[in-house]
């Protein structure tokens, strides 16, 4: 089932909730190899986004909502993750265009554009121990699921699973971008906070899509 603006709004709300719930964990991860603000940064940003959701026009497209998320994150998060995640949503919004519904192809395009946006701004490569290490496996898995004929919910579930694995995979690595790169070998054994938060957000996407699909099937 193609996903509309209702899903995007649900996803954003679920993202805000999951970020708030994991705020302390993200702060702790960032304390270990960064500066201890990642959970606080995203919580501040997503809380601001949620506060703006009520103002959304009834006929807003998914792209318009994603753009609102982008500009709000950019203007409230700060730090490295603000511009990076903000750009992800901004480029995702661009890929969504004026469509009122996002099918599996569109979702893959949105995720790919989002990932490309992060790479464009942050210049990180896979294996640098950044959020890219959640996004790139997610994009690849989403595309594979789509190619295999998966539903929208299945595409997002594949993305979430891969992002989760990608975030976990960062643990043994040395970092080559972001603050953790200052630590050299001392970053080994710690999960990248940005990869972790991206995986949480993508899991929220999959969960809300699954819930919508279930509701539609029942209804």
């Amino acid at each position, binding site marked *: 089932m193609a996903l509309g603006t209702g899903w995007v709004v649900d996803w954003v709300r679920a993202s805000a909730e999951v970020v708030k719930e994991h705020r302390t964990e993200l702060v702790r991860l960032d304390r270990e190899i960064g500066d201890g603000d990642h959970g606080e940064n995203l919580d501040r940003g997503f809380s601001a986004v949620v506060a703006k959701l009520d103002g959304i026009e009834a006929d807003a497209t998914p792209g318009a909502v994603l753009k609102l998320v982008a500009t709000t994150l950019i203007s409230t998060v700060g730090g490295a993750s603000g511009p*990076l995640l903000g750009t992800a949503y901004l480029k995702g919004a661009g890929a969504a265009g004026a469509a009122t519904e996002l099918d599996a192809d569109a979702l893959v395009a949105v995720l790919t554009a989002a990932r490309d946006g992060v790479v464009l701004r942050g210049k990180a490569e896979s294996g640098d121990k950044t959020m890219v290490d959640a996004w790139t496996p997610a994009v690849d898995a989403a595309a594979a699921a789509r190619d295999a004929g998966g539903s929208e919910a299945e595409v997002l579930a594949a993305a979430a699973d891969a992002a989760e694995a990608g975030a976990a995979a960062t643990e043994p690595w040395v970092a080559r971008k972001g603050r953790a790169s200052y630590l050299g070998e001392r970053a080994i054994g710690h999960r990248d906070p940005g990869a972790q938060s991206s995986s949480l957000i993508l899991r929220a996407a999959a969960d809300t899509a699954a819930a919508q699909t279930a509701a539609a099937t029942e209804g």
Partner: protein
Amino acid sequence: MKKLINDPRAVVDEAVAGIAAAHKGLLVVQTDPTFIARADAPTKGKVGLVSGGGSGHEPLHGGFVGYGMLDAAVPGAVFTSPTPDPILAATKAVDGGAGVLHIVKNYTGDVLNFETAADLASAEDIEVRSVIVDDDVAVKDSLYTAGRRGVAGTVLVEKIAGAAAERGDSLDAVAAIAEKVNGQVRSMGMALTAPIVPHAGEPSFDIAEDEIEIGIGIHGEPGRVRIPLEPADAIVDRLLDPILEDLPFQSGDKVLLFVNGMGGTPLVELYIAFRRAAEVLEGKGIEVTRTLVGNYVTSLEMQGFSISVLKLDDELTELWDAPVQTAALRWGR
């Protein structure tokens, strides 16, 4: 967590209100978005200087706003780069028609947010140049890092570029001076204790009573190595060696020696460190012609310090000596 605060989330707003109340006449504080500007900004025909970054490094940057130094400072959340909006607003507020220089410490977040603000300002026809400060020799500038960090050397860049702007240099010339200072200053720091970020409520790293961190940044990031506690002189030597090798500094050089406290170190200890650093430089034939000692680029209540050495020439010396009138650095006026 024991802090003299009301609410962890209100720290920056309340501190900025305090800065405004304490330095009326020198500064004005704008809110929504928040930035600190010279009371007399913009200065017609003068290049505007804007810096900023996470809060918790006070007096950096707000304490350096005033005649002969910054035109505006943009404070982010504690240890978090400000977003583009207030940077843009500050840039617009201090543009006197001669363009605006952004002085940015080299952290991914600061660079990206200032970049966005600069793009937006250009779109509004304000000429913006940016200088990235990356003086910390603890971090190698390589493909395998986000590059060197900007630390205490930032104050020297801000002071000297500010003097150049004040004497009427063009945007290109002020940017060139700032680049020159950044090219000639090297810094390295250490910590005895970790800072406590208010919203985190716990020390940024755990460290034993007999250990110290060498090569730390100013955001509570752990350092490059952790070693057993050493006497002050040994620590100074450990920081100075890589600084001196890096430029490299040589016998006959004239330098500014800057011993910077991280916020929780008593001045008496900074002077003990200064004594040793001056002694070592002298021993190598490097002449200390200008000095700065104190808490200028801090990391909340962290105990520790950094050493910065800036190679001087006549022009930089003259600009350093030029009048400055800010909350935290003041002479000649």
